[in-house]
């Protein structure tokens, strides 16, 4: 019986490289309840992006199982939305036409007016009203990432998979986007896996933070984050959050294979 919307059990995977197989994942377990938000952190190159590709059905694991909604993932599915560090907006399309792109694949029968209405709703939520007819190059990095978020949500996916989406932004813009993300979650029901290298981000956005070990990655540590749903940035400066960040910091050191005093 599968209760969680995302369920990853005992996943192992190795890439074939010129110098033989490179084990990347080894004993990965992740459970994300419906509507909940899982933040995944881990050392660079440990296999986080590989994890997103497995959940998205872009590749199959050598061993183990990936379940979405009680179904084995065997390939790509229309109920997934993806966002990357690079917003990958198409320069030959306006912002609104970029946002409706997934609908052209997922809902070929939907009328253009309906698609636009849906996209405008999202653009308004992220504060991009008035920019719908601009080209991506006319927007700032933060605005592009907002548009990219809209695109990954426009077809109302069950699962949102984000691979370091805010990684290339400056601190203030990143904090703005955290709040946008929090507001989107309240407005739309989706279950999220967020890859990040920012511990503060993982605590602010996540309902749980999953720490992966160094390559080959296994699930090293899972922290439940019990903060109110309507948390504001101020919560980041409270003692419970400081403690959580401290523990996560130590776990990352362990994952990187360094000695550490256990708290």
């Amino acid at each position: 019986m599968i209760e969680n919307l995302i369920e990853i059990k005992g996943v192992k995977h190795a890439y074939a490289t010129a110098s033989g197989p490179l084990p990347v994942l080894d004993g990965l377990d992740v459970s994300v309840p419906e509507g909940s938000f899982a933040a995944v952190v881990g050392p660079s190159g440990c296999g986080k992006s590989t994890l997103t590709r497995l959940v998205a059905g872009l590749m199959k694991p050598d061993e183990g199982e990936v379940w979405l909604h009680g179904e084995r993932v065997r390939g790509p599915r229309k109920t997934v939305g993806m966002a990357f560090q690079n917003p990958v907006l198409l320069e030959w399309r306006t912002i609104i036409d970029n946002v409706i792109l997934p609908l052209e694949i997922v809902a070929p029968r939907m009328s253009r007016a309906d698609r636009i209405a849906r996209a405008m709703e999202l653009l308004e939520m992220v504060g991009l009203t008035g920019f719908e007819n601009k080209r991506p190059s006319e927007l700032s990095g933060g605005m592009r990432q907002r548009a990219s978020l809209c695109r990954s949500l426009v077809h109302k996916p069950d699962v949102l998979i984000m691979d370091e989406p805010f990684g290339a932004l400056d601190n203030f813009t990143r904090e703005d986007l955290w709040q946008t993300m929090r507001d989107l979650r309240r407005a739309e029901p989706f279950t999220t896996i967020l890859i990040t290298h920012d511990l503060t981000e993982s605590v602010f956005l996540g309902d749980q933070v999953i720490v992966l070990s160094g390559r080959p990655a296994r699930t090293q540590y899972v922290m439940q984050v019990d903060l109110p749903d309507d948390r504001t940035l101020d919560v980041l400066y409270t003692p419970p959050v400081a403690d959580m960040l401290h523990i996560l910091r130590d776990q990352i050191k362990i994952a990187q294979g360094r000695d550490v005093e256990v708290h």
Partner: protein
Amino acid sequence: MLGKIVVPIVAVLVFLGLWEALVWVNNWPNYKMASPSDLPPAFWKYKELFLVMGWQTLWRTVVGLFIAVVVGTALGMVIGFSRIAREALYPLLIGFNAIPKATLVPVISLIFIGQHDFNTILMAFTISFFPIAVSVGIGLSTLEPEYRDILRALGATRFTIFRKIALPKTLPEFFGALKVAATLAFIGTNLVEIVSPHGRGLGALFKSGETNGDYPLMFAVLIALAFLGIILYYAVVFLERIFAGWAEREAT
């Protein structure tokens, strides 16, 4: 807009003026170097021939170029999508491209004896498909994986990904290559018209000028060729504006 029209025209006039002055100062006779003022009479004298033969050159070039676009794009897709095909085809393509095309004219003329239009188009195609194939191939094979994945993660087919993402994304490179290919196709057409003369095209007119010692005619043909080349080039630029205008950055 004014600058875009006036500046090139002034440049051409300055060029013609310098040419005229050069011939005049050196007091060169016609058989050494015709001067611009000799050209209008030459054009006028053979105006029907210029129209008919110019058209023959132009349509055969355009057809050859069109086939080069179709075949070059198809080859580029194969190279771009399949690593095995890339490794297999690159040496062949590069080797083929390295052959001086003038040496192919007699070969082609012998294989397809008398098929003059076909031979000419074949040469225009042969000489011009390479840059198109390479640019499309490189454009597709260097597509960042994220661009593919945003649609692939939704279960889009390879063809949909090609149509919605890969193709539009490579259009700027494609048009860059098409500008080169258009000029090359011209060279191909003229090569056949001059090396294997069969009474058609501006190349044949050039040949007859040469045979009759009509030097102003020969220079007039060169100018006509340059003129056609410019027209074809700007036709490509026009298409580029329509289909890949988004890639143009505002000048700052």
